[in-house]
């Protein structure tokens, strides 16, 4: 074989492998979406039906009207959205304050705080389930979305601060100093100079918190007992009934739960990886 032919063959093999990997990654997602739009006789079959030939919205309609566990899927989507947005709002304020402290000031205890941030991220959230459940109950927040929000703030804050501090540190100090020299107060400097520049980082950090809270299962499972307070990950479990599984409805609901995450994900993935690798390679 000539070197040129060999090179060409290598390229073909590479691209073919890439297509296989692509298929492996995308097929399960595609299968979820396509099942959501297939009629039941095309779902419950031992045949392989690659596309829904009778495209139908019946499952989407059914989960929106009948729903599951006594409520429309809207209720659960709304609960999930409330929990995730609440977590993001509180988390954004708290993490911005703390990130500014560690990125803009040298103070006693700063390193201890940063190490603390690292260490608490190693604690498995599953281990905190029991004491947090008891505390939430004692505080009267059981069966309230607020309880779930509070817990999710705790789960997402350490990483939020850790990530946001790099964004704050990346804003040149000279800008603030200039504003300062012009007589702006500390608050004005923060609000008019630092905040707009950190905003993209804050958005990225918030999206991470949003996704974590949106996906969270185990706390939502034990902190909410009334079905009207379930979040999506909990509610969806109730489709697995005793009498046969309604896969069309399950796939329609899973698709609805997945869409917001995929959208957010495509928005921020670049930042996430560059942050991780920068941290690792420079060390």
């Amino acid at each position, binding site marked *: 074989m000539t070197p040129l032919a060999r090179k060409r063959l290598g390229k073909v093999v590479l691209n073919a492998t890439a297509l296989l990997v692509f298929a492996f990654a995308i097929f399960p997602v595609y299968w979820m979406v396509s099942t959501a739009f297939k009629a039941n006789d095309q779902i419950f079959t031992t045949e392989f039906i690659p596309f829904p030939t009778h495209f139908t919205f019946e499952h989407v309609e059914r989960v929106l009207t009948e729903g599951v566990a006594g409520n429309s899927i809207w209720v659960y989507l709304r609960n999930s959205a409330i929990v995730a947005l609440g977590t993001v709002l509180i988390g954004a304020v708290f993490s911005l304050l703390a990130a500014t402290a560690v990125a803009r000031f*040298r103070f006693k205890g700063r390193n201890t705080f940063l190490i603390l941030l690292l260490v608490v991220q190693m604690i*498995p959230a599953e281990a905190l389930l029991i004491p947090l459940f008891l505390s939430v109950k004692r505080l009267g927040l059981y069966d309230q979305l607020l309880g779930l929000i509070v817990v999710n703030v705790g789960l997402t804050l350490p990483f939020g601060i850790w990530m946001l501090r790099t964004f704050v540190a990346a804003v040149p100090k000279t800008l603030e100093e200039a504003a300062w020299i012009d007589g702006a107060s500390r608050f*004005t400097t923060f609000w008019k100079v630092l905040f707009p520049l950190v905003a993209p980082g804050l958005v990225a950090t918030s999206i991470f918190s949003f996704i974590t809270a949106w996906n969270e299962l185990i706390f939502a499972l034990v902190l909410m007992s009334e079905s009207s307070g379930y979040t999506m990950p909990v509610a969806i479990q109730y489709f697995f009934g005793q009498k046969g599984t309604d896969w069309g409805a399950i796939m329609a609901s899973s698709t609805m739960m997945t869409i917001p995450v995929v959208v957010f994900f495509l928005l921020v993935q670049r930042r996430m990886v560059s*942050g*991780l690798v920068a941290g690792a390679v420079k060390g």
Partner: protein
Amino acid sequence: MTDMSTLAPGGERSSTPGRPRRPRGRTKASGLPVWSIPYVLLIPGLLVIGALLLYPMVQVGIMAFQKVGLAQISGRRPTEWVGLENFTRIFDSEIFWSALRNTVVFAVVAVTLTLVVGTAVGVLLNNLGRKMSTFLVVGIMFAWAVPPVAQGIIWKWLFDAEAGVINWALNLLPDWLSSLLFGRADWTGEPWLNDAWSIYMVLALTVVWASFPFIAVSVLAGLKGIPSELYEAAKVDGASAWRTFRKITFPLLKPVFAVLTVLSIIWDFKVFSQLYVLMGGPANREAFNLSVYSYAEAFRSPPRMGSGAAIALVLTVILLIVTAVYVRQLVRQEDL
């Protein structure tokens, strides 16, 4: 992506925070002495971390040595110290040992597979043309973005006994090949999610599918940072692809691999959502891992929160030991 909260450090070391330039003690606008400002800013964060992470962790440590049943939860009876009773009970139970075995074996297998597949795809991405590379990154991003509960649901559907695609595909194999490989030809109705062994096989597939993209994209980013002269030199010297990987790529990406390994261990050690969905709630005790076992003990009826806490403590201690090495290294290396 259950756990973005344990995602890695993004280090920005170039801009070290400076001292406030203003003379100490000046109090314009905020009305506070300058030295106190960072502490004031930290108050909300510290309160959250203290109240929602540190204090509960201490409580887990205490409750592991107490009896916390229905009477204690409702406050009818005070908590009662029981010494090591919770631990002796779980250590005597067969479920604990099978859960421990499931946890460890699954973590080892899933972490290894994820790293191998992810690295291979990362190297592949680096060698593809620009268009193909972008195409593949977007494709694997979808697998990565699916919420853990939906991941479990999707793979449960693919492995469904009656209408699952996997059984259909296995039926496509020529009968002689299928019999030779698996000792059977007909796969219709094969229930994959009934016994522990095959549940964990499906779980491993699910977890690898969902987490290899993160490894691949991270490895790709790392590879982009390696100067191409090194590869050219290797080429001139006639080094094979494998040798180039072993002698150049791997050593230079070692710090990246270290982080990725620890993150994968943390994620796979305490996998909950996907397992919960695949086995259909905490029903199949042989398929428990430590997370599910702790949850099942604590929230059974009647609840045994003390035992649940003891299991959670075991899980945490194992995880902390495994990751302590990493944290120490990070703290030592990093100019925080």
